[in-house]
C-alpha cells in the first residue's frame, strides 16, 4: 500500500494557531483519570486509563479492532459514561454533566465517524447546514458559514450534489465540514479513514492536521498504520482496553513489535 501526494488543501483566511509552547502552559482540555468502562455484557472496554490532552494537541489513539479506541471517543462525547474514574472535558466532569447540558458539550466538539453519517436525501450544502439548523436555526449568514466550511474541506463546487454522487473521501469531507460549522475546539474522529482508499484517507488526515493548525485539538482513533507512521504525532496505543504506550511523536507500532 502506498500513499501518493494529494492536491494541496485550500488556503484559508484564518491564520494558523498551532503553538506547542503555548499549549504546555495551559490546563489540559481532556483528562482521563483512572477510567474504566465495563459494558452491560460484562466486557471491560477500557481499564484504568489515564492520560491528558493539551489544547491544540493532535493525538492518534491506535490499537487493534475491539481494543477500546471507539470507547474512548464515546466516553468523550458522553455517549457512554465511565464505570469508574473521571472523564473531564475543558474541566467539566462528564459524569456530573446534566443531560440537558449535553447539547452544549457536543456543540464544542466536531465529531466524524467511519460511516460518514450523512443524510442521503439532502444535498452537500443541506447536510452541512443541518448542523446549524437543528442547534441554532436563527443564526445569521447560514449560507456563508456553510460555504466557508465547504471551502475549508475543498468542496465548494459540490454544493448541490447528493452524498451518493460523491466518492468516499468527498463524503468524509462533507462530514468534516458539518463538524466544522460550530467552530469546535475539540475535533474527534473515529476511524475516519476506515472506509477510504489510501489516497483519500491521507487527504482526510491532512485535512485534520490543517484543522489542528487552525487551533482545534484533534483526537483520532485509527488502525491505519501508514498515516500514523507518516504523521509522527502523539500516539496513545490501547491493547485490551489498557493504555500501553503514550509517545509524543510515535509510530503505529513500538520498535520491534511484530505486524499482525
Amino acid at each position, binding site marked *: 500500500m502506498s500513499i501518493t501526494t494529494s492536491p494541496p488543501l485550500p488556503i484559508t483566511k484564518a491564520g494558523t494557531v498551532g503553538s506547542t509552547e503555548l499549549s504546555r502552559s495551559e490546563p489540559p482540555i481532556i483528562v482521563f483519570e483512572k477510567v474504566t468502562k465495563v459494558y452491560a455484557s460484562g466486557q471491560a472496554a477500557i481499564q484504568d486509563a489515564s492520560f491528558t490532552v493539551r489544547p491544540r494537541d493532535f493525538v492518534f489513539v491506535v490499537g487493534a479492532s475491539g481494543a477500546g479506541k471507539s470507547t474512548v471517543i464515546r466516553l468523550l462525547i458522553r455517549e457512554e459514561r465511565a464505570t469508574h474514574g473521571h472523564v473531564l472535558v475543558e474541566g467539566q466532569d462528564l459524569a456530573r454533566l446534566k443531560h440537558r447540558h449535553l447539547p452544549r458539550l457536543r456543540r464544542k466538539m466536531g465529531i466524524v465517524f467511519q460511516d460518514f453519517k450523512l*443524510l442521503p436525501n439532502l444535498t452537500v450544502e443541506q447536510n452541512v447546514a443541518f448542523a446549524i439548523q437543528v442547534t441554532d436555526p436563527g443564526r445569521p449568514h447560514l449560507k456563508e458559514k456553510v460555504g466557508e466550511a465547504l471551502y475549508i474541506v475543498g468542496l465548494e463546487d459540490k454544493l448541490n450534489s447528493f452524498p451518493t454522487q460523491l466518492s468516499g473521501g468527498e463524503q468524509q469531507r462533507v462530514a468534516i465540514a458539518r463538524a466544522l460549522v460550530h467552530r469546535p475546539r475539540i475535533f474527534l474522529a473515529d476511524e475516519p479513514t476506515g472506509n477510504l482508499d489510501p489516497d483519500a484517507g491521507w487527504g482526510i488526515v491532512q485535512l485534520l492536521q490543517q484543522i489542528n493548525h487552525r487551533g482545534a485539538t484533534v483526537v483520532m482513533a485509527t488502525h491505519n498504520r501508514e498515516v500514523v507512521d507518516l504523521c509522527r504525532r502523539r500516539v496513545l496505543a490501547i491493547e485490551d482496553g489498557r493504555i500501553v504506550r503514550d509517545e509524543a511523536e510515535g509510530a503505529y507500532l513500538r520498535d520491534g513489535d511484530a505486524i499482525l
Partner: protein
Amino acid sequence: MNPIPALKFVSRVAFQNIVRNRGIALASVLTITLTLLGAGMAVVVVHALDGVLQTEESQASVLKVFMADHVSFASEMNLEQTLEHQPSVARATFENKDQAAQQAGSSLGLGQAINLLEKSGAGNPLPASINFHLRNIKAVSELNGEVRTSAILDTGPHPTDYNADVIPRLERYIFIAQLGGGLVVAVVGAVALVIITISVRTAAYVRRREIEIMKLVGATDWFVRWPFILEGVIVGVLSALVASLILVIAGLGFGGGHSLALGIGWRFAALTVLALIVAGGALGSVGSFVGVRRSLAA
C-alpha cells in the same frame, strides 16, 4: 434560540416527515379516524340517551298529590304553601278537576270516556291535584312520605303518583349510560394513543440516522422531539376533522337533511367537533412524546 426560525424548521420537518412516510401517516389517519369516530358516536349516543333520561327524570321529579273531593280551597292552599317553601321543592302548581280531565283527554285519549261519565251524571271522576316540581329526583320519596300523612288527600289506593320502582331504575339507567359511554371513550382513546405511539415510533425508527446526527451535533432533546410532536398533532387533528365530517354527514342523513338525528342540536354538534379536535391533538402529542422517547434515550 430564535423561536420563529425554529418553528419554521420544525414545521417544515414535520410536514416533510408526513409526506415522506405518507403510507404510515395515511394508515394512522385512517385508524385514528375510526377510533375517534367510535368515540364521537359514543358521545352522541350517550348525549341522546342522557337527554331521554333527563326528560324522564324531570317528569319523575314531579310529585302529583291528589286531593280528596271535599277538601276546601283554603286547605289545599295551606298544603301547597307549606310544602312549597321546603328547599327540595322548586315550585308547586295546582291542577283543578277540569284541567285534570282536559289533560287526561289530550295525553291519554280518555276525553270520550270522561264526557260519557259526565253526561251520565256521575261527574268528573278525576281528582284535583297539586304538582310539586322537585329540584332533585332523590327528594321525591321523602316528600311522598311526608305528604301522605295529610288528611286532605284522596282516599283512593294512590293518593300520589309516586312509583317507588321508577326512580331507582332511572338512576340505574343514567349510571349505566354514563359509565358505558365513558368506557367506550376511554377504550377508543387508549387504542388511538397506542396507534399514534406505534406510528411515531416507526417514523422515529425510519429517521434514526437523522436523530442520531441531530444529537451528535448538539441539538436539544426538545428540538429533536418537536417535529414528531407536531407530526402527531397534525395526524390527530386531521383524523378528528375527518371523523367529525363523517359524524355530521351521518347525523344529517339520519336527521332528514335539515337537522341532526337523535335530536342533537347544532351547539352540541359544534362542541363535539371541538372536543374531537382537541382530543385528536392531545392524543397525537402524547402519543408522539411517548413514541420518540425511546429514540432519544438510545
